[in-house]
Every structure is written in structure tokens, then in C-alpha cells.
């Protein structure tokens, strides 16, 4: 197990394995996401109360899930950076933060556009929406802090600490709708219970969520590869790689 852990820390090994993995992530992820979206938009029945505006759920929930999951992954990587000083963990945090920023923005935006016709307002300062906005600022803060520090090692540690401090926000987002009165409704998808919607609605939603995770995996791989190349551009294996013309 430890050997695998050390192998995982090797940028060269990661570059090779991710190159082989990426086509699969992209193709299967796009197929699942598109299947979920087309099914959800055109074939799923409309909701008895909200009519067709609820179809925004098929992108709102995948982006909201991923916005939080990506942060949890970053927090795990931050622990690895601080404790084991593994370079690849820091590369992951750096590569994923902009993706998290865009996806969090999308979940807020789709939520606002969905809120207008259903609730009657674009925005309200309830616990769920506010904690999600804090998540957006956390992603922005991670990116800004990383850019502000020139030294690679100090930047890695400072960013890791910021990511860890921000991780308390994740349970607040998740449980905000249960702990406090909010305008936002509780979760439809729960790990322990059956979803509170029929299968012809939750199956496409699940497909879209899975597709989104795979596309996120692809984005993480390609951005990590870029970062690895930047850091290892003087090494022998990068020379062999680029001179052979293989990508």
C-alpha cells in the first residue's frame, strides 16, 4: 500500500497513467452528462407544482454536488501536502481550484435563475445560499493566495492551511437546510434514503451527476499535467516525452 502511495507521488508515473485514463473519462463523462441532460430536458415528466422550470435541477444539482466534492478532495490533498509533503497533492489543489470556482459559480447562477420563477426572488440571504457564496469566495481566495506567493513551497503550505480552514464550511452547506430555517428546500438525494422523486426523474439526474464527476476527473488530469510539465520542464523524462512528439 505504501509503495502505491509513493508511486502516486511520482509526477512521471502520474503523467503516464493519466494520459491513458483521460480519453475514457472524457468520452464516458460527456456521454453520461449529455444522456442525463437530454433525458431530463426532453423526456422526464414535468413536476406537478413547478412545471418545466424544475428541469434546471439536471444541471443545478450536479454542479452543486461537485462544487462541494471538489473542495473535500482539495482538503484531503491539503492534509497530504502538510503531512507528507507530496508534490502531487499540491499540484492537485492548484489545478482544481479554478475548476471549483467555475462550477460553484454555475451552481449559484443556475440556482438564482431557478429561484426567480419558483420562489419569486433571484437571491435571498438564507443559510444555504450564503454558505455556498462563501464556498465561491474560498475558491477565489485559494487561487489568489497561490498567485500571491512566489516561492513554490511556501505557497503550497499557505494554500493548504487556507483550504483546511475553509473545510468547516462544507458541513455547514450540507446541513444548513436541516439546522436552520431556510428558503432552500432540503436535499432530494440522500445517501441513506430513497430519493424523493420518481425514477424517471432521478435516473437522468444521477446520470448527469456521474457524468459531471468524470468530466471533473478529466479536467483535473489535464490541468495537473500542465502544472507538472511547468514544474518538471528541465527533467529528462519531460525531454523524452516532448521530443518523441507524444502527448
Amino acid at each position, binding site marked *: 500500500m505504501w509503495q502505491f502511495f509513493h508511486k502516486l507521488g511520482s509526477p512521471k508515473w502520474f503523467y503516464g497513467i493519466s494520459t491513458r485514463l483521460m480519453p475514457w473519462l472524457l468520452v464516458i463523462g460527456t456521454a453520461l452528462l449529455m444522456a442525463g441532460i437530454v433525458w431530463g430536458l426532453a423526456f422526464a415528466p414535468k413536476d*406537478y407544482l413547478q412545471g418545466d422550470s424544475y428541469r434546471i435541477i439536471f444541471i443545478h444539482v450536479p454542479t452543486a454536488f461537485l462544487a462541494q466534492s471538489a473542495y473535500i478532495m482539495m482538503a484531503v490533498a491539503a492534509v497530504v501536502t502538510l503531512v507528507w509533503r507530496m508534490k502531487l497533492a499540491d499540484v492537485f489543489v492548484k489545478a482544481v481550484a479554478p475548476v471549483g470556482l467555475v462550477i460553484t459559480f454555475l451552481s449559484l447562477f443556475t440556482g438564482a435563475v431557478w429561484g426567480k420563477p419558483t420562489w419569486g426572488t433571484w437571491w435571498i440571504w438564507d443559510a444555504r445560499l450564503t454558505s455556498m457564496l462563501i464556498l465561491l469566495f474560498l475558491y477565489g481566495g485559494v487561487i489568489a493566495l497561490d498567485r500571491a506567493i512566489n516561492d513554490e513551497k511556501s505557497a503550497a503550505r499557505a494554500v493548504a492551511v487556507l483550504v483546511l480552514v475553509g473545510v468547516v464550511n462544507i458541513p455547514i452547506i450540507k446541513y444548513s437546510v436541516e439546522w436552520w430555517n431556510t428558503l432552500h428546500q432540503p436535499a432530494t438525494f440522500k445517501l441513506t434514503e430513497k430519493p424523493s422523486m420518481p425514477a424517471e426523474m432521478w435516473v437522468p439526474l444521477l446520470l448527469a451527476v456521474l457524468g459531471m464527476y468524470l468530466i471533473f476527473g478529466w479536467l483535473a488530469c489535464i490541468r495537473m499535467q500542465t502544472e507538472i510539465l511547468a514544474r518538471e520542464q528541465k527533467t529528462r523524462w519531460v525531454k523524452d516525452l516532448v521530443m518523441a512528439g507524444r502527448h
Partner: protein
Amino acid sequence: MHPIRKKRLTIVLFLLAGIGVAVGLTTYALRQNINLFYDPSQIAAGEAPHDVRIRAGGMVEKGSVVRDPESLKVRFRVTDFQSSVPVEYTGILPDLFAEGQGVVAMGKLDAGGSFVADQVLAKHDENYMPPEVAESLKKTADGQPVANGAAQSASY
């Protein structure tokens, strides 16, 4: 595990625990401010301040909506199945506003204990279903009104 790494891991865990406790205590202390709205029970118990802009939330009581025929004025009662508060509002209601649906109203409690709202938002629950299913559920529920009421109070 290497002793240095063990030490670093302990520091990280303490950091996390410390932040967790600090944020937990803060949000606990601010819990009433974080709540978006007051329940009708809280208002009935006198927990909500008068003449200050607050939000009240709950279900629109069935059969309580009275619309003024000449203007956009509407009166209804908001309930949490224990207490209820009368609400007055003038303006356009959201599409999802209906008897038996959740609402969050923003406004002031007047001296008489009724709530004068200047904004009414619809609050929906986490349940989604096709119209046909909702229709047939309604039919079966009309046969057993008790079970329906219990289910609604649990999901609001």
C-alpha cells in the same frame, strides 16, 4: 509512520478540531440570526419582535386565502400546524403560491398580532413528481384525510 509526519498530522488534526469548535460555537450563538424566518409558534410565543422587519414562514392554511376583489390585497393564515398567524399582503404572489404550500413572508408584526407583508416568497419542498402521480395521490389522500395531514406536517 515517521515521527515527524505523525507530529504534523497531529497539528493538522488539532487545527481542524479547533476551527470546528470555534465555528460550531459561533453558529450556535448566532442560530436565531441565521434562521431565515420565524415559525408561527415562535411568533405566538412572543419570540418575534414587533415593528421590526422580520420574516415569517410556514404553510398557507387551507381555506384561509381571501382575495380582495378590487385590489391586489390578499389575506391568509400561515400555520405550522400548531399555531397560525394572519398575514396581509398587497402585490403579486409567486406562481407557486397556493393553499397548503410553504411561504416565507417579509414584513412587520403589527400591534394586533397580524403580519403585514411587503414580500411573499414561495417555499417548496424536496419532493418532485409528475402531475399524474400528484393527481392520483390526491385522490387516494382524499379518502384518508388523516394520513395526508400527518404526511404534510412531516414534510413541510
